[in-house]
């Protein structure tokens, strides 16, 4: 719209302006006139109604007081001389209708029961009295008035009048039509005047525009315009002519200047190209420095962050301006503010060490996942940092916890420093991190070890190479009756009795386990088991000596008690074996006495064999209580003695039968010794009795070989041999039955070989046989 107006010709613009001006003035005047007219008419009716209400209100007071309706209605009847009043009501103070008057215009019938009208505002009659006045309002094209009737300062009733405004409206509308006609005429007149008057201004401008077009088309600055008037338009024409003159002259000068300028530009261009070469060199140097710095930053082993804290500074400055002084309290109570500040940091760059520290695939990966790096603890750390910055520090060191992208907690020490030169803005801040995780873990492990050292009941001492105690635990201290503090710094040999005190240096340290005696603070001495060892550095150089000390007083006492009880047991066992031997000898003697009374040779022989068997057992018990350890006997000795006894018993001279004993030196358990002894007894008896009949002489060999896998016992003679009908498997004699049974007892096998004599071999497995080679 505005644009459309701008593009109109000046002639049309002038006409429009003049018409707008005169039109709005005319409309304003007419409107004001009509409004004033309407208002003054209304005022008049209002004033008339007011004075009428005054009279009628006064006249109906007594009628109201004495409740005389007919008198009140008579009073209202007087209104019929006022045609503009079309209705009137008298109400009691309680708003009950008391009397009514209504003009009935011809053909127009009002509802007889029309309630008295009320103003829009719900003011009660009493409020009206308080306001002391009346109310006017418009309703259905009529003016209403409501007025309290007062007698003796008391509200006795209310008067309501309705006046018709139709007549006024009709008058005003006729007036409006007349005014509109005048307006239209005036407007047309103004249009005529405007289109004639505008040309005084527009014509010279139109002429000037035409000339200007010609000048610019032809480039002819020699053209001029005739001046017709002395007003601003005339001045504009002469100014335009002047300007054309000046442009003509300027045109000449410009050509000259242009030529000079071209010369100067050529010179300056050469200078510039020279300077450019120098600048290129500088730029190259700068680039190199920059790239050196970048490489230093990128490849620094220390994780580094380059950040921009300027928004944080603005935030803190705002807080300070708003009166915050205690930043620590402020940020402690508002975790949201801390988070908000963290959002304000702009991360400019991070280096490769940082990427590695947080196990990110790349910088991009790290910066995209910072929410995983910062934990709730990191915010606590950031809060400390903020408070320190707010207090004006430019270097801040805090410790806290971050998290790697794969979720590992890293303890870090963070050092933040505002780069010098940026203290006012904090636009450049370098944050370096030191990963303390390994150190923390080592500290924790040390703490665990320390706890173990404190709780163990074994005393532990660490001494330096001069033998001075540098560490000891409470078990060690209390074992020796000291406090830990008393021992630290003391020579370690304080703990040994003076006669046992070894001298350091460490080269002489007795490593390995040993028993010794130690000295308590109160002078008492107690047995200990010590284990010492050198602590060496990575190069194998000794650093310290660790000694573990165990109080073995109790163990020693137990040992002594055990030893005593073993001696006691030995005595008892000897006694038992002795008694068994004695008892067996008594049985043997009893059998001997029995034999003397028996005349039958066969029975005597049987009894004699039994007696020999008992004697062989008795001999073993005798050997047992003579032996050292009471559970094993030297089998060689046993066989030797036993065979001697047997030969004398059967009265076989060594000249007739030679007894060769080839026995390995073995010790047999009593469980094995008794069956073996009885086997030898049976086989030897057999050989002595039957192998060499009449004058036949020969040799009997008893061989015992103890080998790795088995033990072999053989009894061999070169006598007559067994009768051919004898089958070992089915032999009936008690002797051979016994041999087989006894061999089974020791898991052995029996073989009988006939080879110009008899050889009986018993083999039993070595394991579990109870045989032991004597050392």
């Amino acid at each position, binding site marked *: 719209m505005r644009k459309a107006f701008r593009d109109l010709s000046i002639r049309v613009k002038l006409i429009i302006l003049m018409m707008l001006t005169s039109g709005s003035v005319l409309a304003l005047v007419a409107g004001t006139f009509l409004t004033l007219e309407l208002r003054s008419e209304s005022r008049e009716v209002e004033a008339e109604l007011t004075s009428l209400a005054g009279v009628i209100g006064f006249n109906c007071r007594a009628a109201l*007081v*004495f*409740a005389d*309706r007919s008198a009140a209605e008579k009073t209202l009847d007087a209104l019929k001389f006022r045609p503009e009043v079309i209705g009137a009501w008298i109400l009691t103070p*309680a708003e009950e209708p008391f009397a009514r008057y209504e003009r009935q215009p011809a053909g127009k019938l009002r509802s007889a029961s029309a309630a008295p009208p009320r103003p829009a505002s719900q003011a009660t009659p009493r409020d009206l009295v308080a306001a002391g006045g009346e109310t006017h309002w418009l309703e259905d094209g009529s003016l209403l008035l409501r007025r309290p009737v007062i*007698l003796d*300062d008391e509200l006795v009733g209310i008067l309501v009048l309705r006046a018709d405004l139709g007549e006024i409206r009709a008058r005003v509308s006729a007036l409006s039509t007349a005014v509109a006609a005048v307006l239209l005429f005036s407007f047309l007149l103004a249009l005529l005047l405007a289109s004639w008057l505008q040309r005084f201004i527009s014509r010279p401008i139109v002429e000037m525009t035409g000339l200007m077009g010609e000048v610019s088309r032809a480039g002819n600055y020699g053209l001029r315009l005739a001046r017709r008037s002395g007003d601003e338009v005339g001045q504009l024409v002469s100014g335009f002519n002047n300007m054309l003159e000046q442009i003509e002259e300027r045109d000449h000068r410009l050509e000259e200047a242009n030529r000079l300028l071209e010369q100067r530009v050529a010179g300056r261009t050469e200078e510039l190209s020279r300077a450019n070469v120098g600048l290129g060199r500088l730029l190259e140097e700068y680039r190199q420095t920059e790239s050196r710095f970048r490489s230093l930053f990128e490849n620094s082993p220390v994780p580094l962050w380059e950040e921009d804290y300027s928004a944080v500074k603005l935030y803190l400055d705002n807080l300070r301006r708003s009166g915050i002084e205690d930043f620590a309290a402020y940020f402690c109570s508002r975790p949201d503010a801390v988070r908000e500040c963290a959002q304000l940091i702009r991360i400019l760059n991070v280096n490769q060490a940082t990427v590695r520290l947080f196990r990110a695939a790349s910088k991009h990966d790290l910066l995209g996942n910072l929410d995983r790096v910062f934990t709730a603890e990191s915010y606590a750390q950031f809060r400390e940092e903020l408070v320190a910055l707010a207090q004006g520090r430019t270097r801040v060191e805090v410790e806290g916890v971050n998290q790697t992208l794969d979720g590992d907690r890293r303890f870090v020490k963070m050092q933040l420093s505002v780069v010098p030169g940026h203290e006012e803005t904090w636009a450049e801040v370098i944050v370096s991190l030191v990963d303390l995780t390994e150190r923390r873990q080592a500290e924790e492990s040390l703490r665990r070890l320390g706890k173990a050292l404190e709780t163990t009941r074994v005393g532990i001492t660490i001494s330096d190479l001069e033998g001075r105690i540098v560490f000891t635990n409470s078990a060690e201290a209390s074992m020796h009756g000291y406090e830990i503090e008393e021992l630290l710094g003391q020579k370690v040999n304080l703990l040994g009795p003076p006669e046992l005190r070894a001298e350091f240096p460490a080269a002489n340290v007795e490593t390995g386990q040993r028993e010794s005696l130690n000295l308590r603070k109160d002078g008492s001495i107690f047995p200990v088991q010590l284990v010492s060892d050198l602590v060496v550095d990575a190069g194998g150089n000794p650093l310290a000596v660790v000694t573990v000390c165990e109080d073995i007083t109790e163990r020693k006492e137990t040992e002594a008690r055990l030893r005593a009880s073993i001696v006691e047991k030995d005595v008892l066992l000897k006694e038992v074996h002795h008694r068994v031997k004695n008892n067996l000898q008594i049985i043997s003697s009893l059998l001997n006495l029995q034999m003397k009374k028996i005349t039958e040779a066969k029975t005597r022989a049987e009894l004699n064999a039994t007696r020999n068997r008992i004697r062989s057992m008795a001999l073993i018990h005798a050997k047992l209580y003579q032996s050292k350890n009471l559970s094993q006997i030297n089998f060689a000795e046993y066989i030797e003695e036993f065979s001697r006894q047997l030969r004398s018993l059967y009265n076989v001279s060594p000249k007739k039968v030679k007894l060769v004993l080839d026995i390995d030196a073995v010790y047999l358990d009593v469980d094995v010794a008794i069956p073996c002894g009885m086997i030898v007894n049976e086989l030897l008896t057999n050989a002595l009795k039957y192998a060499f009949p009449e004058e036949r002489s020969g040799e009997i060999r008893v061989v015992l070989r103890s080998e790795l896998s088995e033990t072999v016992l053989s009894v061999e003679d070169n006598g007559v041999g067994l009768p051919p009908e004898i089958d070992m498997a089915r032999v009936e004699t008690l002797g051979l039955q016994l041999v087989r049974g006894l061999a089974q007892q020791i898991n052995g096998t029996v073989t009988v070989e006939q080879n110009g004599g008899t050889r009986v071999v018993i083999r039993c497995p070595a394991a579990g046989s109870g045989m032991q080679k004597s050392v």
Partner: protein
Amino acid sequence: MTGRGFEPRMRRCALYILAVAQLLLHLPVDCLAIEVPYEYPEARVEAAFVYNLAKFVTWPEAAFRSPRSPLVLAVLDPEMYEAARDMLAGRTVQGRSLEIRQIFRPDQLDGAHLLFIGTGEAARLEQILPALHGRPLLTVAAIDGFIDRGGMVELFKSERKIRFGVQLQTIRAAGLDISSEVLLLASFVRRGR
């Protein structure tokens, strides 16, 4: 002038019944300027009437000791006195407080402005009224023929409603004046003997 025609009487009667019906629904409490229902004891109705009448009567300045001294209503009737005391105590008339005084003899009338005479005194009127001649004292009574016997305002009942007649000459002779509004409402107004 006893302009009491038959037709107006019928109309009044109808209006009266209408008014009573409305009043039964909305009993006036703080204002007496309203018809009093017939159930009310007659004395109370008459007391209200006297009070309303007082608003339209003008006494000479000399009748009051000061501009603020009270308007005194003397009552020569025990029943009426009780009713007046109950209903009118503490009220004001024409900016003056209303004082209600019970009297037993005419010589107790000093300073009174209104005198109400009970029907019990009908026989003694000839002794009372002449003694008051010339004093600014408005006499009211519900005694038949009160005006004829020298009284100023006479109350009577008609169709269960209080009506009144006025003897204007006697009132003017006592130096009093009564508003024409009231006169318009009076059933009859005498201007001469």
